[in-house]
């Protein structure tokens, strides 16, 4: 008997231990005060539900076992009991009240976006995030990293388990300082998106034309990952969010580095490139920014996203082509804010020379600057 118990305990521990190691089965506790509050609230409601469940299912199992005809049960005749019915209407009211009190407290706290140390504007695009640090003058886009992007293509034959943080990694993560109250302003450029990092304990919709807000105060340095949570079209599953929380010092260092990187990108726009340079650069830009809609082979999706291959725009006058890419057209977004002049020049050149288009044209960053 004792052995059986030990064995069972060991088995239970094994399953539980393994569950802890390999599978996430519950909401993460998180790294902000709000997320811990919400986790506690979640567990409180969960246990209340479990307790009610035990009573309800227990009564059911008892009557199923004992009040069955095959055991010779004779049916009783009662069909109401006003006192009992009033009791089981009132008790749930009290239980709900007990849940509503902590819920209200958490909500009031989570809603207080005042007295923030810094503000970051997050804009959802199809299918990337733009982060604008209102105080630092930093502004960049964050897209799915190349490795995940290659592996996730239909029929890529790349095993996702060989890709680090498959679908949860980006090229340029959001970097924030720990211990600072950061107000996040959310909006969108095209359709609805939702910004969600589970370990921060909230999620908000990004709505075109409107600004919603929330706040985070991350307590532990580290990398936190999430995904867009509102259906936003074809690549909805492929717009991850990566946030790196750094100590104040490391954060300041990152700010300085990022600024100089931004400056060198701007300097690139004054350069003159050769056709090969532009095509090579353009291929990269195309795969991160255009391939989601127009497909990596440039064939597009009929009826929704036009093909680049043999397209009248890519084979027509350069100015027209530049205008479509830079200013946008119908559901084609304007890329003037999203890409540098050098990237725009490269991708337009690439489109005119790839997929069998073979125009031999080239567009220099300076020409883009002129049209912007």
């Amino acid at each position, binding site marked *: 008997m004792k052995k059986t118990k030990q064995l069972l305990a060991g088995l239970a521990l094994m399953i539980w231990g393994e569950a802890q190691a390999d*599978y996430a*089965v*519950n*909401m993460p506790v998180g790294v902000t005060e709000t997320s811990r509050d*919400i986790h506690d*609230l979640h567990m409180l*409601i969960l246990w209340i539900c479990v307790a*009610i469940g035990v009573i*309800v*299912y227990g009564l*059911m199992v008892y*009557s199923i076992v004992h*009040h*069955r*005809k095959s055991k010779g*049960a004779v*049916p009783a005749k*009662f*069909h*109401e009991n006003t006192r009992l*019915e009033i009791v089981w*209407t009132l008790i*749930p*009211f009290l239980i709900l009240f007990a*849940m*509503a009190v902590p*819920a*209200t407290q*958490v*909500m*009031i706290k*989570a*809603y207080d976006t005042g007295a923030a140390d810094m503000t970051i504007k997050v804009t959802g695009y199809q299918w990337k995030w733009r982060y604008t640090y209102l105080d630092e003058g930093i502004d960049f886009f964050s897209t799915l990293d190349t490795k995940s992007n290659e*592996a996730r293509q*239909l*029929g890529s034959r790349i095993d*996702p388990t060989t890709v680090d943080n*498959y*679908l949860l990694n980006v090229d340029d993560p959001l970097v924030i300082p720990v211990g600072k109250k950061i107000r996040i302003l959310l909006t969108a450029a095209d*359709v*609805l998106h939702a910004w969600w990092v*589970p370990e921060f*304990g*909230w*999620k*908000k*919709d990004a*709505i*075109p*034309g*409107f600004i919603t807000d929330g706040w985070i105060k991350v307590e532990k340095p580290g990398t936190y990952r999430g*995904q867009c*949570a509102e259906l936003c*079209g*074809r690549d*909805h599953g*492929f717009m991850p969010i990566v946030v790196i929380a750094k100590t104040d010092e490391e954060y300041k260092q990152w700010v300085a580095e990022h600024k100089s990187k931004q400056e060198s990108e701007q300097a690139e726009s004054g350069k003159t490139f050769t056709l090969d340079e532009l095509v090579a650069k353009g291929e990269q830009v195309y795969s991160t920014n255009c391939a989601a809609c127009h497909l990596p082979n440039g064939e597009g*999706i009929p*009826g*929704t996203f036009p093909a680049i291959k043999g397209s009248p725009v890519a084979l027509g006058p350069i100015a027209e082509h530049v205008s479509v890419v830079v200013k946008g057209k119908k559901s084609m977004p304007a890329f003037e804010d999203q890409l540098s002049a050098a990237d725009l020049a490269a991708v337009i050149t690439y489109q005119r020379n790839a997929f069998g288009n073979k125009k031999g044209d080239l567009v220099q960053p300076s020409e883009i600057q002129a049209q912007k």
Partner: protein
Amino acid sequence: MTAATHDAHHEHHDHGPAKGFMRWVTTTNHKDIGTLYLVTALIMFFVGGAMALIIRLELFEPGMQWVDPLFFNQMTTLHALIMVFGAVMPAFVGLANWMIPMMIGAPDMALPRMNNWSFWILPFAFALLASTLFMEGGAPAAGWTLYPPLVLQGGNHLPFAIFSVHLLGMSSIMGAINIIVTVFNMRAPGMTLMKLPMFVWTWVITAFLLIAVMPVFAGAVTMLLTDKYFGTSFFNAAGGGDPVLYQHLFWFFGHPEVYIMILPSFGVISQIIPTFARKPLFGYSSMVYATASIGLLSFIVWAHHQYTVGMPLAGELYFTYATMLIAVPTGVKVFNWISTMWKGAMTFETPMLFAIAFVVLFTMGGFTGLMMSISPADLQYHDTYFIVAHFHYVLVPGAVFALFAGTYYWLPKWTGHKYDERLGQLHFWLSTISVNVLFFPQHFVGLAGMPRRIPDYAVQFAEFNAMSSAGAFVFGFSQLIFVYVVIKAIKGGEKASSEVWEGAENHGLEWHLPSPPPYHTWTEAPAPELILDKH
């Protein structure tokens, strides 16, 4: 004189159905129309189910293996629209058509010609919807909620999808009017409102919900149409509109809609449990009041679907409290079902098995629903697989199991033949086990951070998704057993008595009619002493 000849002439006919194909096209008989609805619903259940299997096939392992993400989105959208409007709703209308006249002692529905029309609109509506799959740009891919601006991005599928929604709405409203008129005007003498069987009560309340909300939905989608084709800006912020307005309109319809799919299930279960517990339904009056309260509350809680859009704190608090309140009448119903079983003499034929599974699993969906009502916690649950698990628990082992339970319960009455009990139980056990393998793990991946409506996922979600997909395939193919059982019972089998189930005559008028019932149900009103006081 003419009248007398006319009567004499009619006495020689048995008023049976016309023969052949045209019987089904031109019929105004409530049983024929009920059958048409049920068969259509079953077909659409398999169509929507096939789409679900495409979704689960793609999600079986991480990485994209089978379909383009855009097609994946089309599948999630059509799966939902077809299951809601094509399978669950028509199936309940089918049950209502078959059972309401039999249960209230009426010869037929009050508006038989409109009844024919409201059914025959459906096949055309679904043809319009399905045709979008073959269009350039494909079917709508913005989810069943059809949120703008995304839904406005697609190709020319939009007007087809929207006209189909308009037609489905018209059909539902006509069906609802018919039910209300029938119940209010055609009851047998002595059948007061508080003697109506629970199934009839739940349908009356559902019918009022339908009439109240379908026009709102029709209006919202029409505004989408004008935004796309006539240059209006109802939902376009750049033109002074508000994309969130659509969501409020949608959920003002959408939240009552979930009760439209679940209230009739409550009715079916309230008919079945007393029969197999051999006891009257416990707390009939409180069941009626609870159902009515759920119906009323469903109108004032819609924005709990939008906790994350950024409402003012006061709004968020209001919707939290109001939503939590729904747990009270729902709890009353569950307690009443259990008290009906308590001290009964239960047997466990297939309908009872499905009814018990309904109570257990629907309650689970209710618990997760309660968890979601709490706004701060919902900020984490929203748009994750936790939500997917929740609403599938209330709609599959909820609404769909209630439909199975009802079908097994009344099938011997409809066909005059007993169904194959052994196969029925096999269907039950396979469905119940697989439905849990299918949806239970989704709670875990949702809490751990997997958003819904994604065609591919991070590798840490792989095991539970594989499990879920395996469950889906077993569940899907198990339903073929159901089709076989139904066809077998229609074709023949052991004759069923009028009572069908032991002591069933104590539980409703329909069991006093022969099995199968005559083509024109109650040509004479049932004797007043047959009408039950408490069910």
